[in-house]
């Protein structure tokens, strides 16, 4: 007969609520139930005695109980009220080698002991039945399903892959246990010092290498093999749930993306239908908004990125939305009242952290819009974020992250000026100067930068002011542009910057 391990008994989900009061022996031959000590068999043969009568109150009666149970050959005693045992009685039990357990329900303990020693099929069947019971209740998503499974099986349940734990419920799967799981096997049972787990591969077409693990501390081989069967039974439900969640995600993301596009395209022309649908999705246009855009610098799985962003946003203590849009994710934080500047900076820092996190798996650039209010403000903030993301895509120095507020409008303008459409125009505009040598362009740029001050330009370039005046006059002549005309000046200044 397999000995009954104390650890396995403690790990059993229906052990009658045992707690260790005195730990001496840690394995028993079996469990014997009796009303009181006098009804126990005389030859206890190293078993665990479970008494249904509560512990006596007088200290000498407790001593006597401990002694007599041991004298009958038992190595363990479980009874309700064992916690009242005084230090003397506990010392006596320890010295005699009798493990004492407090138990709420001795009959459940007896049943658990029987399952672990003799009734392995019953143990397995019990787990399988409880898995089936949990499937009966509809789960709203994958994490919910794992919670149901964990609650009914009575052990922790986790979804793991080769890198780590993706989801877990009903406890924490120690890293050492997860690392010990052999991902190559269809079914695997591991037991290390930190705990034990039974796992089974999840057949999911969309995600490879997933495993469903049921885990706990002190699980015996019998419990592990029973749990492995339970995991096998639960696995199809988990795989189906993953698929359902993914389909739902994709369709929901597509709808949200379409709605955002309509909202952005309508601009200031308010469409009541769009507004209705937005409010149905919980997108508030009232209040203050801080938009962000996380755009892929190259092709990427936007849905994956959206999942990642949503997970990150969920951790922020603020109302937030995120929607796939083009080659990236657009989103915004909403506030009822404008947050004070330090709070706003904190939110931006959180978004920065989200961006940094995303960059570990995706090649993205992020722009943050400015804080603005109302539906129009949301539009403006999103526009800002989109511009910011465009700038950030070329800014390795800032970690591919740009906050438009901090940048200033001129930077946006400059960035736009650096675009593919403007550079050829600038080149053709300044072509007459380029043909005369680089010094004219250089001097003109410096002159415009220094507010058309000849002396300042001369000082900056280390030239005589007459030289500067002469070169400016020549450039003006070549270009045929009146530098006192504000519009012409601006265009010329931008063109100089674009070519520099």
């Amino acid at each position, binding site marked *: 007969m397999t000995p009954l391990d104390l650890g396995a008994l403690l790990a059993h989900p229906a052990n009658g609520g045992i707690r260790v009061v005195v730990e001496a022996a840690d394995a028993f031959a079996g469990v014997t139930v009796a009303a009181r000590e006098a009804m126990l068999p005389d030859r206890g043969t190293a078993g665990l005695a479970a008494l249904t009568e509560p512990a006596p*109150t*007088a200290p000498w009666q407790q*001593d006597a109980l401990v002694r*007599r149970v041991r004298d009958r050959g038992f190595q363990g005693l479980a009874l309700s009220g064992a916690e009242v045992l*005084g230090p003397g*009685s506990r010392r*006596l039990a320890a*010295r*005699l080698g009798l493990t004492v357990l407090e138990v709420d329900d001795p009959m459940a303990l007896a049943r658990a002991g029987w399952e672990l020693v003799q009734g392995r099929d019953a143990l397995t069947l019990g787990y399988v039945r409880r898995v089936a019971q949990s499937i009966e209740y509809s789960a709203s998503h994958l994490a919910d399903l794992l919670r149901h499974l964990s609650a009914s099986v009575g052990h922790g349940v986790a979804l793991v892959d080769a890198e780590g734990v993706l989801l877990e419920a009903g406890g924490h799967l120690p890293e050492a246990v997860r690392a010990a799981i052999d991902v190559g096997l269809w079914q695997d049972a591991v037991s290390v010092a930190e705990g034990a787990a039974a796992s089974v591969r999840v057949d999911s077409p969309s995600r490879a290498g997933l495993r469903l693990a049921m885990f706990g501390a002190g699980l015996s081989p019998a419990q592990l093999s029973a749990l492995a069967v339970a995991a096998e039974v639960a696995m199809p439900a988990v795989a189906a749930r993953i698929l359902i969640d993914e389909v739902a995600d994709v369709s929901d993301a597509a709808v949200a993306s379409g709605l955002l596009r309509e909202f952005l395209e309508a601009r200031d022309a308010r469409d009541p239908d769009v507004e209705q649908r937005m409010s149905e999705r919980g997108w508030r246009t009232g209040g203050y908004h801080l938009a962000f855009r996380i755009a892929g610098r190259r092709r990427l799985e936007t849905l994956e990125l959206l999942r990642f962003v949503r997970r990150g946003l969920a951790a922020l203590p603020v109302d937030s939305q995120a929607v796939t849009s083009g080659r990236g994710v657009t989103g915004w934080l909403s506030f009822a009242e404008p947050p004070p500047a330090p709070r706003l900076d904190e939110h931006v820092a959180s978004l920065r952290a989200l961006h940094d996190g995303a960059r570990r798996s995706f090649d993205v650039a992020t722009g943050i819009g400015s804080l603005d209010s109302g539906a129009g403000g949301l539009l403006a903030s999103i526009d800002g974020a989109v511009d910011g993301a465009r700038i950030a895509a070329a800014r390795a120095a800032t970690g591919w992250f740009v906050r438009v507020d901090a940048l200033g409008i001129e930077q946006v303008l400059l960035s736009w000026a650096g675009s593919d459409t403007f550079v050829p125009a600038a080149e053709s505009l300044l072509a007459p100067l380029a043909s005369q040598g680089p010094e004219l362009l250089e001097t003109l740029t410096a002159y415009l930068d220094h507010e058309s001050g000849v002396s300042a330009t001369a000082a900056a370039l280390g030239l005589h002011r007459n030289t500067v005046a002469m070169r400016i006059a020549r450039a003006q002549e070549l270009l045929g542009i009146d530098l006192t005309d504000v519009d012409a000046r601006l265009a010329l200044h931008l063109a100089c910057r674009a070519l520099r």
Partner: protein
Amino acid sequence: MRTLGPDRLPVLARGFSLLGSGGGGTTTLLEIMAARVLDGAVDLHDLDEVDPGTPCVAAGFAGSTYLLTERVPSADAFAPLLAAAERWTGVRAAAVCAMEGAGLNGLTPLLVGDRMLVDADLMGRALPGIDQLSLLVDAVPGAIVVADTGGGVMLVDSSRAGDAESLVRSSVIRAGGAGAVLVAGFTVGDLRAHGIPGTYTRALALGAADIGGDDLPEARVLGSGRVSAVDAVPDDAFVRSVELVGDDGALLRLVARSEFLAVTRDGETIAASPEILVAIDSVSGEVLQVDAVTLARHVRVVALDAPPWWLASAERLARVIPAAYGLRGLEVGR
């Protein structure tokens, strides 16, 4: 007949302390009082030497012995009780014996001067109840109990021991928690049949023996160890359980009310009332009262033979075993 000189008082007192089984009160006060009252030696008469028809009384204090040390009784505390008893019985009691041959009450008869001291008592050890007096247990006809009511006296003439216990207890409470009690209406002949003879002789022998040297007569050493806990018992506020870590590692437990009632070793009862259970301080050799066995004290636990009178019949025994005090699971050998 033996002669008991004042120089024998300390030995006698120590013997009665041992017979106290942890109760009976400390003897110091009575030693001092007796030394003042005594005028030279006292004759101690064996029961066989005295005419069986001699009227006799038994004297003792009842209630809180602790209280007596704070409110010292007067030397002639028994005079009004004797007067009432002799008026009721119509004869002068020529002999006196102890009501409780243990603790301070072993010396109490010495305060009742001018009577013949006979070597006997009504308990043979310390016991808490008036209903445990041997004359009342055997329901000897004519025996009466007289008690101090604090300024007056009360006399109980009843064949029911429980009545005497209940009435004397309330009388003693009226008297302020402790008071003199006198048993009368019996003869020396009654003592032979229904008393415990030779208590003084036994006390003298015990008191003279060397406690530290393991040569106490009729003694059995139960163990020694350090007090690790003194626990209250949930069901009975008057019971305490003293836990000792034995020198050999065993768990010794002394179960006590006003006296030690049982000793268990590793959950097994190895001695119980009416055996006389004594705790002796290992360092000073002092015989300890129940409340003096305190945490971290190192004590030796010794059992002295029970007075044979209590073992003679099942009815007598039932009055003094732990179960008589409502304590279960303290039967020896279980």
